[in-house]
């Protein structure tokens, strides 16, 4: 990647005499911009504007943010990596750091690349100017924003001021940005739009040439004839994927970082003739969702780890009664309240094994924002076909990450859900021992007048309770068999890089980007490193052992603890499944997404 670090000479500090006419313009492939402030500064929305602009310009974009779990206030960052060509991760280091406060500077200066630009609010930040690694650009952001907005607005609008400034520095499409601001604030008081525009103008008009010697221009994206790009975050993509997959009913209880999905579905489902209910608690929510599913309408519930723990008993019932259900877990750091706004992949065991008794269920994990959309559709398909609970394991980093991706072909994807209330022929069995259960929802006439009961007690083929040892064995096997059938139908994932070599990095979930960037970068250095990402975690696709056999080492990179025996959660499962001692583990528990460097170091050591 070509970065500003190569373009700016840190030895020549900016001078106030450099006029705008002297500004050089440089072409760059991509840039990592980190905005660091407090959560109430609106840096998320400034970052989101940049992300959406990049999406509209057919540029690749990836964002990363942390939000404090406090209601208002506390340090917060938003990182945007935008550029031309494939952007896999939000970037290990920033080319530009915008620091609103002294603590923002103190906390994040070490994430700035050597030679990178520190853009700081000189009203609040005193950087160590003796540190010659960086380019210092001090602008009285607070003062100028207050001035531009007439002095009564306090410092609200700093985010938009910065947006204007960045638009100038990176030669961004001002008209498109203004359009986005208009869209965002258009629904509100007209004065809010005007205020935002004034702040934007003030930032854009700032004589940046006085403090910076170079302006940048992204390389033009090659014109593509492909589909348009849509820009959204992972929770949005998941919610709209559920709609495309024909899910119309759901129930949940609020918890970070899951809540935005239920907020979207509460408003969206009624448009499609469905309903999403906020329940009194997690137990009520999963139970109501099961009521929807039992009534013939595949439903969704969701939460983060603590809430999933509470839902566990009912999920066991779904497994036993064979009721389809989608359970979304937007994972955060655990256990208990843990790290509510940080990312972790430590709920894999909970998803696969979290229940009493043998209660097989399907577990899927999306890898990117785009994949959130498609994984939701896949989850709905599997839940219906196999009449089973299906987990979707997203996480805190995917939930708020904004990415642009090819607009899906909704016409071919959209499922029109209709409960099958047709009359069932005589001899209908809700639980055929040698077949896959497909329930007759209430409202379906039974030709022989015998109506089925769905139940959490062990049962015979007709749903009557039984304590028969033989039947419990047969029915336990029946519930297992259907997932084995599913395993046979899942495509084996493609290997990124070469089909054989020194090491294969295996990952799951949101770490797709950094893992692939690490493999790419290692290959560019001549190392024979490949990557494999699993979407289906339970059951695993068949045939992985053949892929593993072609590599000297298989390194499972995941954001959870190495456990008592030295292996992360997926690594443990893969070792149990394949008994292959070359399966190794690379784990971390700092609550932050993987940096490319961390994976490279872990794989190459």
């Amino acid at each position, binding site marked *: 990647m070509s970065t500003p670090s190569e373009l700016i000479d840190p030895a020549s500090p900016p001078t106030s005499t450099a006029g705008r006419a002297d500004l050089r313009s440089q072409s760059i492939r991509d840039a990592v911009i980190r905005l660091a402030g407090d959560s109430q500064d609106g840096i998320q929305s400034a970052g989101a504007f940049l992300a959406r602009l990049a999406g509209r310009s057919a540029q690749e974009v990836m964002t990363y943010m942390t939000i404090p779990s406090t209601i208002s206030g506390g340090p917060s960052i938003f990182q945007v990596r935008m550029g031309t060509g494939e952007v896999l991760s939000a970037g290990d280091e920033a080319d530009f750091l915008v620091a609103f406060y002294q603590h923002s500077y103190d906390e994040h200066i070490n994430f700035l690349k050597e030679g990178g630009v520190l853009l700081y609010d000189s009203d609040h930040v005193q950087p160590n100017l003796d540190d010659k690694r960086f380019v210092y650009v001090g602008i009285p952001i607070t003062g100028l924003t207050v001035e531009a907005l007439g002095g009564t607005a306090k410092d609200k609008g700093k985010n938009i001021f910065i947006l204007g400034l960045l638009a100038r520095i990176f030669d961004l499409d001002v008209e498109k940005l203004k359009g986005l601001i208009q869209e965002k604030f258009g629904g509100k008081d007209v004065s809010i739009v005007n205020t935002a525009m004034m702040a934007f103008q003030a930032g854009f008009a700032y004589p940046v040439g006085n403090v910076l010697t170079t302006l940048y221009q992204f390389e033009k994206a090659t014109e593509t004839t492909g589909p348009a*790009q849509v820009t959204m975050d992972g929770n*949005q993509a998941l919610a709209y994927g559920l709609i495309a997959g024909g899910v119309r009913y759901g129930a949940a209880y609020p918890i970070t970082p899951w809540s935005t999905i239920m907020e979207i579905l509460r408003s969206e489902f009624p448009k499609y003739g469905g309903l999403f*209910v906020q329940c009194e608690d997690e137990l009520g929510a999963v139970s*109501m969702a*099961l*009521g929807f599913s*039992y009534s013939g309408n595949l439903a969704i519930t969701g939460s983060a780890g603590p809430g999933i723990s509470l839902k566990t008993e009912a999920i066991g019932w779904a497994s036993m009664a064979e009721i389809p259900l989608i359970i979304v877990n937007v994972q955060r750091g655990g256990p208990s309240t843990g790290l509510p706004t940080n990312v972790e992949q430590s709920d894999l065991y909970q998803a696969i094994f979290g229940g009493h008794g043998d209660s097989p269920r399907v577990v899927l994990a999306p890898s990117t924002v785009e994949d959130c959309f498609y994984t939701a559709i896949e989850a709905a398909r599997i839940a219906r076909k196999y009449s089973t609970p299906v987990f979707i394991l997203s996480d805190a980093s995917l939930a708020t990450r904004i990415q642009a991706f090819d607009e899906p072909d909704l016409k071919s994807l959209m499922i029109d859900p209709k409960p099958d209330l047709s*009359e069932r022929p005589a001899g209908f069995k809700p639980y055929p021992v040698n077949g896959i259960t497909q329930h007759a*929802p209430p409202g379906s*006439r039974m030709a022989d007048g015998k109506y089925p009961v769905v139940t959490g007690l062990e049962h015979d083929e007709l749903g009557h309770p039984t304590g028969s040892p033989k039947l419990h064995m047969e029915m336990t096997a029946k519930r297992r068999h259907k997932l084995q059938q599913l395993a046979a139908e899942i495509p084996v994932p493609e290997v990124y890089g070469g089909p054989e070599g020194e090491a294969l990095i295996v990952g799951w979930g949101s770490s797709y980007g950094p893992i692939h960037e690490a493999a790419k970068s290692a290959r560019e250095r001549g190392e024979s490193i490949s990557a494999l990402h699993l979407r289906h975690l339970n059951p695993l696709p068949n045939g992985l052992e053949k892929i593993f056999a072609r590599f000297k080492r298989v390194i499972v990179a995941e954001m959870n603890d190495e456990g008592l025996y030295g292996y992360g959660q997926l690594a443990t499962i893969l070792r149990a499944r394949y008994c292959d001692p070359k399966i190794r583990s690379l784990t971390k528990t700092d609550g932050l997404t993987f940096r490319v460097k961390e994976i490279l170091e872990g794989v190459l050591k």
Partner: protein
Amino acid sequence: MSATDIIPATSPAPEKLTKKALTADHPTWCPGCGDFAVLAAFYKMLERRQLPHEKIVTLAGIGCSSRFPYFVNTHGGHFIHGRAVPLASGVSLARPDLHVFLFGGDGDAFSIGGNHLEHGARKNINLTYVIMDNFVYGLTKKQTSPTSPIGFKSKTDPTGAIDQPVNPIKKLLTAGATFVARTHATQINHMIQTMERAMDHEGFSVVECLSECVEFYPGAFDAGNPRKGGEFKLIEEKKWDGTPEDEQRHDVTDEIAAYKLANLPFPGLFGVFFESDRPTKNVLEKKWSDGVRAKLGDATDLQILQKTFDRMK
């Protein structure tokens, strides 16, 4: 709305809904259990009303009485302990064409499921809930229940229960249930009438039915059974006939008066304590979603989602 696109049945109309058609597995209850009478009353009520067989749903949680769905030949579900209210709520909200009946005991309703009862009542979900209250945990063989009276000797309170019991009627009233009634398993006609009235009520209708556990709390409800020397005293409801004696009768829409009646010492009164026409969540949600739909004209699901994606370009 997708759920209401009901596919018509192809075969001719079924036989009359008789007790025989409604009977499923033989109940596993102990001989003499009060729940047999509740089951018989439910059959009778269904026979009387002749609802379409496939539109009846019988649901339950866990407990002796929660075995109910196995004994009724209708669509049914036997769920987990305490969560049958939200399960039934999901069925009711998604499927306005169905008659949702829920059965359970005092432990399921007032202890492990207490919070759900509270919110089902508050939200006024359209369903009928018959709580077979026996003042004891029977399935687990005689532990104290939330309605066990102080002094009741159980395996978990060998020297007598010390905790204040739940007053079911008071709990239901304060929670916001819109139909609250009380009956006695030895009074078959009263049970049938009360269940029928509960079924006809639009909203969260609850019937507390004192149903004796002959095994672990025999004689618990004799005080309300004239055959055992007790008194089955009915609530006299106002007839609004302007007579002086009507002044003394109970106005079922008067929540405070209902609360006072519920405060009478055991065995108290039987009949309808409270009835209100507060709109159900079913209706309120429908109204909201109809409003949302109306703004979209006749756009298809695909067009609606496409429009959302267009905004994210």
